[in-house]
């Protein structure tokens, strides 16, 4: 898995609450059997004026000039600044795949939907949780400062602005470890194979109907 330690980069905005996964990557792109290539279709319905089709070249599509991430000043953004309950809706991992493929390394928001939040960590994308007040400060600074950059540091769990703010954020220790080290979670779990087998044997004795019915 891709690791994340620290990142400094240009901030791009998604200034609305409850951004859902259909908005992040619309359903027609879920037909792909690959993990990559979703970046050009990130926020497809907001970003382009026409309807996107899977596999189609996006380079000549008419872009929506009013969509902030299309503004020249946000070109190359690698940190997405967002509002509360980001990533609500479906479990599609295509959402973090699209964000990562577009070039985002981190998202900063006051809260996330649970499944999306969990999916980010599997893909080297750091979802940072700051308070609404802190996110407001970042939006305000970004609005007035072209080329606005932030530094996100995972070991110290901080977001630092050039104006001198240092905001701390919380995350679970196991998620931090996996992300910092880019660990193969399946490999880690398989180190517990004996415990899993022992659990299964015990369970099969107690609740035998859970096993064997589906053939």
């Amino acid at each position, binding site marked *: 898995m891709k690791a994340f330690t620290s990142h400094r980069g240009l901030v791009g905005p998604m200034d609305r609450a409850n951004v859902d996964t*259909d908005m992040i990557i619309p359903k027609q792109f879920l037909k792909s059997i690959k993990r990559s290539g979703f970046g050009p279709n990130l926020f497809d319905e907001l970003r382009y004026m026409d309807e996107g089709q899977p596999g189609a070249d996006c380079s000549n599509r008419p872009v929506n000039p009013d969509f902030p991430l299309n503004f020249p000043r946000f070109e190359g953004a690698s940190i997405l600044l967002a509002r509360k309950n980001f990533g609500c809706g479906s479990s599609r991992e295509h959402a973090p795949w699209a964000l990562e493929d577009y070039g985002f390394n981190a998202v900063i928001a006051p809260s996330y939907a649970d499944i999306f939040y969990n999916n980010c960590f599997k893909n080297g994308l750091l979802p940072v949780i700051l308070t609404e007040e802190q996110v407001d400060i970042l939006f305000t600074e970004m609005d007035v400062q072209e080329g606005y950059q932030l530094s996100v540091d995972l070991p110290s769990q901080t977001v630092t602005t050039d104006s001198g703010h240092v905001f701390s954020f919380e995350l679970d220790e196991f998620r931090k470890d996996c992300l910092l080290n880019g660990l193969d979670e399946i490999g880690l779990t398989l180190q*517990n194979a004996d415990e899993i087998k022992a659990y*299964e044997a015990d369970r099969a004795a107690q609740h035998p109907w859970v096993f064997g019915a589906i053939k």
Partner: protein
Amino acid sequence: MAGRTLYDKLWDSHLVKQNSDGSSLIYIDRHVIHEVTSPQAFEGLRMADRMPWRLDTNIATPDHNISTDKAERDAGVAGMADEVSRIQVQTLDDNCDLYGIKEFKINEMGQGIVHVMGPELGATMPGMTVVCGDSHTATHGALACLAHGIGTSEVEHVLATQCLVAKKMKNMRVTVDGTVGAGVTPKDVVLAIIGKIGTAGGNEHAIEFAGSVFRDMSIEGRMTVCNMAIEAGARVGMVAVDQKTIDYCEGRQFVPVGELWHQAVEYWNTLTTDADAAFDTEVSLHADDIAPQVTWGTSPEMVAPVTASVPTLEEQPSEEQRKGLQRALDYMGLEGGQAIDSIAVDRVFIGSCTNSRIEDMRAAAEVARGRSVAGSVKQVLIVPGSQMVKAQAEAEGLDKIFIDAGMDWREPGCSMCLAMNADKLGAGEHCASTSNRNFEGRQGNGGRTHLMSPAMAAAAAVAGRIVDVRTFTGGAE
């Protein structure tokens, strides 16, 4: 020792290992697989040279992007018109064949929307942990399962290890007491709950639905409610075991018989919340306050009784909320203050993992019987949730009622709930829909979704606009 909630009991009984870093290894009993979120997981297995941990835990079926059109379905996978979709369904077939995973293929009896199929086959039973690469997996919690959606990386994790690395959620109880009035359905109850707690109200929680309204509700109704727990932000929704749960399970294909059945029932009857158990969050509603619900906006929390009006900008307490409302109104083509029952509909969709079971089909048919679709309505899709629901509905003659009313009786699948196949809204079209999400573009680029119950959707089809099914007496226009 303090009592335990149903969620505590389900969690404890599946705990393989508690890690020192705060995470836990949780055992997964049932893994439900469909075509959209599994191909990359199977590919991951192969790239790491791993095999599935256990085969008899998995059950698969295609549902998300298959056609609901009879002629195209009769042509099987090879006849799927959309080449990209065809490859995805073929990939599911190939992966299941390769590893020996039980799959109900595209036109096989048993095939259906994953969350309709699992319970109806008895593949999901009380006390199980159930996961699927789909956020509506909470549906199975109606059978007192610990069921939730996962991403594709976790699909691979479950395939390879039969476990998930997880952190225990908080306990939330949503209690609805009283008795719902005529015309008020499980869909209305869950929409009212979402309206009250909001689309993020259940974040980080597992919700148990309790109170007389859920006790009185059928198992299929409880599935409708648990299904939409995710629309309130909770990955998990569930209802405790009672006699209805046991009766529902008895005799289904994968449910044990004989001595094993009795053993199972004895255990299942313990799957209730202890009287002295504590919840982190408690919410309560009263049945008397719940009228048929309709969403008017672009998030399931943007919901109101059918007798109400669309909110106005003046009522909003903050600038952020005014902006959010204005954006939703612009997208939906509505005015603040407009009566909900003044909204005309262009299409109607009755189906989805929320509302495509036999009771839903019966409720819609009851309204459609002897009536005709309004001339202004372009299409009414009736999409049964599974081959078994379709067969049962046809045995009861419901298909004839729908067809006589001018509605389309389709083949089972997810269909216009997420519009991955050809069933979709055109830009600007309003849809009375029994599905679960009214997000922008969800049912088609530019489409405008109004979530409601099957009876309300059928009434909207006949009236050509949203109407209160409780007072609806209209016929053909």
